[in-house]
């Protein structure tokens, strides 16, 4: 046995750095993925910068009603003469905040519920039947009810969209955990004295990441859509905050005269949702060591 070699520690850390760089390069590999990353970064920048730059997005200008896109108004103007470009840019923040908040909230809560019922089997049946119940609630109706009760605010919308999404996440985590639990490597961990919490964090959770990332990004995309639907129905964010769904809703009557007023925010919505979905798929591929290394 050779005991004079003393490489290990540094070696481990260096390899993790290499892994991270490889992760980045693989993540942005391919034209579609590159565009999706760029769109997402652009959306993030816009959502930070736009509200600081544009202050006149609510200014009504009757003389400039329903003007087509021009150098003055890139996306044209709506039926009240408001600049659609400014409104759309400012509305980006709303969509992103709701998309990400819902994705994060449902992932955390769904993950905990899924792990509890799948691994600890504590109240498995009760939790799952409750989840079935929550799933049966249509999110749009719940949102309308909540907005009626609590008033229209970002938080209300986030809660309303999250509640019916949590069970989906919980079910996916549970099913993955239930099947992983029977794997020999879990038995192996038990025989080598690994405590339960460590089995959960080191063996089960990392192996749910693939399923989690897909569901989280799908949730993010669908939350952005749902928010647009709610704004369209008038149950979304308050009217003083422009949102893509709201802009589309207000302009739908004038669709034939001023198509740009719903076309541009609609295009932004499609691009963002598409990008998030593409990156979600890619995330799953890159995070799975089996798929990731095979490509390189």
């Amino acid at each position, binding site marked *: *046995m050779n005991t004079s070699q003393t490489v*290990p520690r540094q070696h481990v850390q260096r390899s993790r750095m290499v892994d991270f760089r490889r992760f980045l390069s693989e993540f942005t590999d391919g034209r579609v993925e590159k565009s999706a990353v760029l769109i997402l970064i652009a959306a993030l920048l816009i959502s930070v910068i736009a509200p600081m730059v544009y202050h006149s997005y609510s200014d009504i200008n009757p003389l400039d009603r329903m003007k087509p896109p021009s150098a003055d108004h890139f996306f044209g103007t709506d039926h009240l003469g408001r600049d659609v470009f400014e409104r759309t840019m400012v509305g980006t923040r709303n969509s992103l905040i709701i998309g990400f908040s819902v994705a994060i909230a449902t992932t955390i809560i769904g993950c905990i519920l899924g792990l509890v019922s799948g691994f600890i089997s504590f109240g498995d049946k009760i939790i799952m039947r409750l989840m079935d119940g929550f799933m049966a609630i249509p999110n749009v109706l719940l949102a309308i009810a909540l907005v009626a009760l609590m008033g229209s605010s970002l938080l209300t919308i986030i809660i309303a969209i999250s509640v019916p999404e949590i069970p989906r996440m919980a079910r996916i985590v549970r099913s993955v955990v239930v099947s992983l639990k029977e794997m020999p490597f879990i038995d192996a*961990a038990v025989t080598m004295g690994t405590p339960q919490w460590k089995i959960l964090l080191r063996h089960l959770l990392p192996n749910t990441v693939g399923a989690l990332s897909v569901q989280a990004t799908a949730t993010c995309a669908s939350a952005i859509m749902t928010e647009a639907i709610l704004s369209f129905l008038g149950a979304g964010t308050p009217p003083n905050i422009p949102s893509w769904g709201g802009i589309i809703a207000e302009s739908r009557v004038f669709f034939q005269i001023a198509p740009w007023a719903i076309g541009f925010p609609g295009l932004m919505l499609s691009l963002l949702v598409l990008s998030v979905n593409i990156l979600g798929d890619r995330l799953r591929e890159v995070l799975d*060591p089996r798929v990731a290394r095979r490509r390189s």
Partner: protein
Amino acid sequence: MSEALLETKELSKTFNIGKGKSLKAVSDVSLTLNKGETLAIVGESGCGKSTLARLLLRLEQATSGGIEFDGNDISEISGAVEKQWRRNVQMVFQDPYTSLNPRMIAHDAIREPLDNYAEGTKQERNQKAHDLLHRVGLNVDFGQRYPHELSGGQCQRLGIARALALNPKVLVADEPVSALDVSIQAQVLNLMMDLQADLGISIVFVSHDLSVVRHISDRVIVMYLGRIVEEGPADIVLDTPSHPYTKALLDSVPIDHPSKRRSKTLLSGEVASPLNPPSGCAFRTRCPVATDQCAQTIPKLRSVGPKVSAACILLESK
């Protein structure tokens, strides 16, 4: 050599499979594993040998009967006592891939048991993991690889290194080579035998492959439908089997030389269902020499020769 390390006393395991039915996977198994020996457990699929292995590791709780380790009863231990006991008995699994976490590199997999018992400093544990890789004949660079980047044989070596990390006294190997290519099987078996010679550990070797068993084991236990039917030194049991089931099992091994071929007693029919085992001797439905008497009582293990015991009423006890 003959000092008992792990002993079971009338160990039984019954699984409830719903609708009021139960399946008796292991019935009244009493066995002794001595220090430094290799004990093979052989039998057909479904004879309860894997369940027995899991009982020995306390991955399953026995329905009745007791297990003693080094003279201490361990069938009811839990918590910190159980954790301290676990380091004495480690397992090598059948499938080298699924017994490793796909998201953990080899180095971390070996370090995990060391971390669990907080042995030495982090640096020392890294060093030990490193040495173990070397010990089982793996290139040290493989420490940075994920299981899917290793071959089956390499994964099994990794599994053995991980099992050895805690310096166990007993290694339970559940068909450790049946998933490997024949050429790799020999390598892994020789590795296990070398390690046993160096470290003096006892091995429980579960297998259905009799040629492998002959190669590696000191004593053999033959199981049929959850019960021990024959037990004794490997060379005696495998060369001059007593129990009709052992005879039939050995006859099923192909012989590589035409002139050595002998008349065979091939078994007919299927293994009786463990859900509804036959009365008396469980093997009587397929036994070539069964009589009416065999249906009456469950035969007990009796001494039938020097160091050999068998459970068959037709054998004269000695």
